């Protein structure tokens, strides 16, 4: 396990451009973070979570191979309750929020978002 960084982040989105955008927003936020890891779907994310110490996860919902919702279920099944979960999705519906309500989701960011939204999330979850 990689434990050298204080606040490592994992960004999960099937769009490489969106991952880059979130990464840029994290860097612009001024919040001190460790390594920023990336994954293109929930399955890849599980691999990263098993190999590295991740403090916070930013995940999309609709992704091929494994969705964000299934990723959150898998994390719950593994007992990874210490990882802060943040959803970053175009789907901000009440139905979707209800679906993930019992999956330890700390915050929900709707796309499209301004970079300040990521800064505000980081300021909240880093406490």
């Amino acid at each position: 396990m990689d434990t050298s960084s204080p606040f490592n982040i994992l960004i999960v989105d099937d769009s490489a451009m969106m991952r880059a955008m979130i990464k840029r927003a994290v860097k612009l936020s001024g919040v001190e973070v460790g390594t920023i890891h990336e994954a293109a779907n929930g399955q890849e994310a599980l691999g990263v979570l098993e190999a590295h110490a991740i403090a916070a996860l930013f995940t999309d919902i609709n992704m091929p191979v494994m969705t964000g919702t299934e990723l959150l279920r898998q994390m719950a099944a593994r007992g990874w309750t210490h990882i802060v979960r943040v959803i970053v999705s175009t789907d901000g519906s009440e139905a979707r929020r209800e679906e993930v309500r019992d999956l330890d989701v700390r915050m929900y960011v709707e796309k499209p978002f301004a970079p300040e939204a990521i800064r505000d999330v980081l300021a909240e979850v880093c406490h």
Partner: protein
Amino acid sequence: MSSLKSVTDAVASVAERSFFAFAETTDADVPVAGDCYEICVAFTGAFAGVVRIVMPIALAHELCTAFSGLGPDDVIAQDSLSDLAGEFGNMACGTWLTGLDEPVCFSLTTPVVSQRSEPGKRAVMLVNDQPISVELEIER
């Protein structure tokens, strides 16, 4: 369900909020012509269908530059350009469906982006003065 108008409103919202573009609907007979991206996002949930957006590649480049914070002369890889075009479609479709406030979750497929030479599809809106075609197909 909803009308095409609410979809174009969502497209305009995404263009303005995430891509720092100016969007307006048009009734003028403006064609989307030349080298274009066709972006298709299928969805299932309370009902199913497809949102299809056609935009000039030049506009996709402009949006990508704005989204990424790049300079106008920066080189953008083809993969990045089509990825971003797909994300534009994904955000537009997701924003529209969220606005419907249906009691059932919608699932969106990964956007399918194809490059083609458009013979002159009628535009329904202008983004940064460039024509965009938006179509909504409800399957059931």
